């Protein structure tokens, strides 16, 4: 039995069996017998481990494999019992004690009677592969870090942009409000006059009423005397009182006084109602941005805006209302009123310009006409403000909707009116068009869809207001 095994060992050790091929392999080829003794190792193994083959052959395989590599022994055990090839990792130990990570591919060598006599292992140094894997992993970690850093930077940039956007939105809202206040400021003198007129005649009426009351008190005193005389049955005195009373009534024109009294009271009430109406309109007008969309009646908006602007307009132009039946639209009534007011104020200013250049024969400034129209066109409500004023110069046409563009003197306009009106109309999914002829007049047309979608605040930069100049 022993001699048979020895014979086989001899065969394994016989250099003649080892082809040149095996010696020139890059991988380590090692043969280990059932007693864990190295029976052969090729040149690549000698080079890698630093031992000459003669030092390794005959040694237990544990001399070149570290203790930690128990999975190597499990693989060997499975190889020995099943005969099926096995793959595992292992760690080699060189002569100088260096540990080299490697992979092991084992298969069995069978002897006489098909008995498993030895294990043939192909061992590959994986240091280079491990190094490449580490480099890849490092690169991956580096990449992940870079991506995380970039993501953080992007998030920060986004936050900054959002902040800036919020600030801009606030600034825009403030600007819109400021422009509205400016328009109102321009109207202040007119509004003051509008309030002053009724206050003036109500005051005058009150003075008249006080005189009437004085007269009535005198009459009352006469009647007091008359009543006293009657009660005393002093008919002589009563007759005298009655005559004085009648004379007084005649002198004071008591009948007319009583008639006028009612008239003066009614007139004063009317005047106070006018003041109340103006104050209400102003209050409604100067209110800040409303939050919710509501149903808007454009004609109502025209009426209340005209109430405020009436005085500003009435010395410059005759305002002709042509308000057609229009359905309510969904939107922000205060903002739409701001648009109407802005168009009306612009129209009024168009006459300021003209009076400077064109004066009637008798030297008095010509009074223009402003038409304000509403009508339904298809599925949209159209609001037109047309004037017979100075017109817009063609070279200004491209800029009239730009913020801060104005041809008005300092203090007269902010240059924001049309820009803000444009924004408001866009918010209502509408369009604003202008047609103007220098020296003849201008017509602004606002088209507001009846079924306006929920407030779309994003303006499409490509869509420009339509301008036509002649």
């Amino acid at each position: 039995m022993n001699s048979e095994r020895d014979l086989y060992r001899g065969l394994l050790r016989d250099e003649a069996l080892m082809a040149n091929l095996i010696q020139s392999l890059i991988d380590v080829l090692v043969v280990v017998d059932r007693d864990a003794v190295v029976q052969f190792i090729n040149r690549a193994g000698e080079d890698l481990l630093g031992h000459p083959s003669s030092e390794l052959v005959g040694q237990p395989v544990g001399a070149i494999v570290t203790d930690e590599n128990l999975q190597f022994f499990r693989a060997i055990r499975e190889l020995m019992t099943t005969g099926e090839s096995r793959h595992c990792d292992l760690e080699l130990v060189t002569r100088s004690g260096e540990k080299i990570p490697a992979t092991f591919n084992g298969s069995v060598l069978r002897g006489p009677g098909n008995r498993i006599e030895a294990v043939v292992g192909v061992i590959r140094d994986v240091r280079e592969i491990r190094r490449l894997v580490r480099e890849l992993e490092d690169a991956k970690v580096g990449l992940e870090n870079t991506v995380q850093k970039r993501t953080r930077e992007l998030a920060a940039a986004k936050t900054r942009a959002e902040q800036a956007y919020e600030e801009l939105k606030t600034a825009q809202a403030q600007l819109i409000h400021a422009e509205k206040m400016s328009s109102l400021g321009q109207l202040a003198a007119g509004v003051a006059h509008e309030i002053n007129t009724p206050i003036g005649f109500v005051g005058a009426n009150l003075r008249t009423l006080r005189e009437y009351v004085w007269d009535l008190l005198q009459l009352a005193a006469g009647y007091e005397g008359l009543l006293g005389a009657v009660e005393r049955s002093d008919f002589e005195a009563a007759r005298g009182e009655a005559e004085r009373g009648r004379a007084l009534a005649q002198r004071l024109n008591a009948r007319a006084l009583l008639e006028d009294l009612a008239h003066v009271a009614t007139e004063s009430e009317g005047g106070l109602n006018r003041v109340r109406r103006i104050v209400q309109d102003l209050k409604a007008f100067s209110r800040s941005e409303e939050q919710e969309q509501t149903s808007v009646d454009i004609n109502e908006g025209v009426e209340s805006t005209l109430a405020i602007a009436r005085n500003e307009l009435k010395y410059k132009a005759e305002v002709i209302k042509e308000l057609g039946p229009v359905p309510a639209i969904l939107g922000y009534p205060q903002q739409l009123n701001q648009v109407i007011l802005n168009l009306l104020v612009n129209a009024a200013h168009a006459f300021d310009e003209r009076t400077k250049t064109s004066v009637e024969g008798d030297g008095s400034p010509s009074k223009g006409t402003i038409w304000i129209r509403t009508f339904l066109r298809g599925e949209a409500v159209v609001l037109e403000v047309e004037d017979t004023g100075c017109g817009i110069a063609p070279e200004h046409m491209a800029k009239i909707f730009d913020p801060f563009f104005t041809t008005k003197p300092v203090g007269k306009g902010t240059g924001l009116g049309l820009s803000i009106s444009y924004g408001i109309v866009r918010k209502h999914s509408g369009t604003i068009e202008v047609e103007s002829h220098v020296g003849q007049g201008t017509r602004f047309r606002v088209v507001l869809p009846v079924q306006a979608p929920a407030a779309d605040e994003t303006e499409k930069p490509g869509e420009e207001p339509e301008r036509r100049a002649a």
Partner: protein
Amino acid sequence: MDAIEVLLVDDEPDYAETMAFWLKAKGYRVTTAADGHEALAKLSERLPRIVFLDIMMPGMDGIETLRRIRRSHGALPVIMVTAYASDERMGEAEQLGAVGFFQKAADFSVAARLIDRALHDLKQRKAAS
């Protein structure tokens, strides 16, 4: 230095062969026995430095084998091999002078340490006596 001789007694040839291979790979000289009777027979032929003895074997079990080893070979270091982390027969084995326990699922490197410790203790005891 002469290789340390180990006798491995285990009725499971698969396990015995793997452990033998590992011990050989680590430079021990190994003989195996498949049961208690074979173990006692091998011991009468040639005395190893240390014995790995499976507790659970059919016929004569590890405890009985250990008892007989004590009778015939006195203080020979014996490490008991068990499949379980705890075994009620460990106490009995300890009273019979077992120098360690090796669990089958444990790494073989534990077996190497047990051998080293057992031989070291033996040397000290001899020096003391």
